[in-house]
């Protein structure tokens, strides 16, 4: 291919018939790969230690998310503040007609008294938004009694990934105040709790690897003192966004309000190549000596590539150059596809992006994949969240490995002749605590997961 041709190819990236930038929002969606805005705010709140969600909604919005978001995020219950313990105004018809303000006021009052939380997040669902309950002014009554915010997140306003942005929007507007800058402090955004199923382990890995180059990563979620971490956000020197679209809005907001610039990565880095690139870019922006970065990279890569030799026989003898299919949120899909292609020599057959990115981000997601895979194979890239359509798209294709949600797990062999690995929302068939594919070790773990599908059985 001449260089001229390549350029043409890039310009026409969206007119290629292998790529479907279809918008399916106007049609019904069967078993979608996300939940609603309320769910995104709810999961994000529960990701914060000390965060207490207060649902202003029907009772089903809470219990529905226990099954639809928490268990679906790698069998994670919601802790003391989530699941069946979630404070909820449980609105019924009476409140639809007469308003639910009084009930919410009582609920907030008792929640603050009973719960040992540090950050209370009132989440308005569909009912109060439709009837126009004045939730802001009720929340205002409690601002001097506790750290409390209101997130207006009617389910119809967007999906759970967008709920993550709504949560941060509320935090910035209602809680954050300017702070003195702290050199080498960065905030991590773009990893959506529960919905991005490896969130816990990924955040930990990112923190640990950055620590090695002297960067203090404020990962906010999973750590003790969540509220303190949130209040620390304006002190950061940089924000790091690990997604092609999630977390972009908050990063922009923080840039405008607190003059914090941000560094953008297409996904959480998976494996040695992506992680080394990640470290180099962060090092450059934060003025860290390149000697320090390069010596770390050398050490990590040396160890990682030696480790990758252990299962290499299994790959070369049993499943070399296999086609694979990915069905995942954009962050997961980009990192995994690049790793399997560039580091294992596997062939991307079809990639289905399930997190319904806003139209303006879709082209950049496609480009990120197409332009960064070292292979002559051009995968089909389809934006799809409907489980029926996803399965139809997977039929009669050469792929041997299917990395997707657990919805495909039971019948992957039967329906598609594929070996299955659960990597994306919803994941019901796998408990995910620290397991993840980020960083040097993460790549090795993905390698382990792939090999483990076909070695044995004894």
């Amino acid at each position: 291919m001449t260089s001229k041709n390549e350029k043409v190819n890039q310009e026409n990236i969206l007119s290629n018939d292998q790529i479907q930038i279809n918008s399916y929002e106007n049609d019904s969606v069967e078993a979608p790969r996300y939940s609603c805005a309320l769910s995104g705010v709810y999961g994000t709140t529960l990701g914060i230690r000390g965060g207490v969600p207060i649902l202003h909604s029907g009772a089903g919005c809470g219990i529905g998310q226990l099954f639809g978001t928490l268990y679906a995020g790698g069998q994670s219950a919601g802790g003391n503040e989530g699941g069946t313990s979630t404070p909820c105004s449980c609105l019924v018809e009476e409140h639809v007609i007469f308003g639910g303000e009084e009930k919410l006021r009582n609920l907030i009052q008792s929640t603050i008294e009973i719960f040992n939380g540090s950050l209370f997040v009132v989440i308005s669902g569909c009912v109060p938004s439709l009837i126009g309950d004045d939730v802001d002014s009720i929340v205002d009554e409690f601002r001097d009694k506790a750290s409390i915010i209101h997130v207006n997140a009617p389910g119809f306003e967007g999906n759970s990934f967008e709920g993550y942005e709504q949560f941060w929007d509320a935090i910035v507007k209602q809680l954050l105040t300017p702070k003195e800058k702290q050199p080498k402090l960065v905030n991590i955004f773009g990893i959506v709790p529960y919905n991005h199923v490896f969130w816990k382990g990924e955040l930990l890995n990112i923190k640990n690897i950055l620590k090695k180059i002297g960067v203090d990563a404020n990962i906010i979620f999973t750590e003790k003192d969540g509220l303190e971490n949130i209040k620390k956000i304006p002190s950061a020197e940089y924000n790091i966004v690990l997604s092609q679209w999630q977390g972009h809005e908050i990063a922009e907001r923080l840039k405008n309000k607190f003059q914090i610039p941000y560094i953008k990565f297409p996904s959480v880095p998976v494996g040695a190549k992506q992680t080394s690139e990640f470290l180099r870019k962060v090092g450059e922006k934060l003025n860290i000596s390149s000697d320090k970065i390069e010596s770390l990279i050398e050490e990590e890569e040396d160890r990682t590539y030696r480790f990758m030799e252990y299962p290499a026989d299994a790959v070369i003898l049993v499943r070399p150059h296999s086609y694979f299919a990915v069905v995942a949120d954009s962050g997961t899909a980009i990192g995994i596809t690049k790793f399997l292609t560039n580091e294992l020599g596997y062939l991307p057959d079809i990639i289905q992006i399930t997190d319904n990115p806003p139209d303006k981000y879709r082209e950049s997601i496609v480009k990120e994949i197409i332009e960064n895979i070292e292979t002559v194979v051009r995968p089909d890239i389809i934006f799809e969240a409907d489980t029926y359509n996803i399965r139809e798209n997977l039929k009669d294709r050469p792929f041997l490995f299917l990395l997707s949600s657990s919805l495909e797990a039971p019948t992957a062999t039967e329906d598609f002749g594929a070996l299955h690995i659960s990597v994306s929302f919803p994941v019901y068939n796998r408990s995910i605590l620290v397991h993840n594919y980020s960083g040097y070790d993460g790549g090795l773990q993905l390698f382990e997961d792939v090999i483990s599908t076909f070695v044995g059985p004894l």
Partner: protein
Amino acid sequence: MKKIKEIAIYGKGGIGKSTTTSNISAALSDAGYTVMQVGCDPKSDSTNTLTGGKSIPTVLESLRKRRGNLKVEDVIIEGFNEIYCVEAGGPEPGVGCAGRGIITAIEFLKQENIYEKYSPDVVLYDVLGDVVCGGFAMPIREGVANQVYTVSSADFMAIYAANNLFKGIKKYSNGGGALFSGLIANSVTFPAQKDILEDFILQTKSTIAGFIPRSLTVTQAELWGKTTIEANPDSNQAEVYRKLAKSIYNNKEEYIPSPLESDELKNWAESWSDKLLELRKQEEGDFKI
């Protein structure tokens, strides 16, 4: 079961729906029919002039208090001449959802089989409005009213509300909803007002069910907490209401009107602007008297 005549009367706020409806109820009741009037307006004053100016417990407020133990007897109150008076009720202005309130109240009445228990000949729904949302359209959907009237003056805003109602009727007519039976022209005193309304019904392929003049008798009766029929049965105004009631009871006309599109309505109103200005002056003069 005998055939019940179920009528919904719509119109913009303050245009005279409740006044007109209550007088129709009173007139029909005087004529020997069993009448029920259901106020579907969060203002809850539809039946005030039938109950001596007093407010009665509303369906929604009572549902809220009794929590599933509400009996229809608690919210169906006998007023003037044993007219059954009901007020749907609703939230305070600016909170909750009045539209959902109307749905809930009407569903409650339907569930309780009130027609079998009270066996009315005529049921009149006095409904707020511009049909701004699905809730306010409840009475014109299948299975509630079968004839719809609108009260309108020659005021543009009242005509706008009537036109919106036509849109609602048109929409629900596919699913067996109520049909239109006529415009009740209220507060019509000057010939120009009559001209405007007659032109509007021509444009929308609808009809006028009757003209009611503006009258101090009405105001006086209202101050006593009574309908004109009760307070001043021998007045001309009472006669007007009696005639209207009779013609509405016998009216078999039911059809889908042709609402004007927003632009058409605007252009139409503009074509009457000179006449309207003239009217304003006359009305102001009228006011001084």
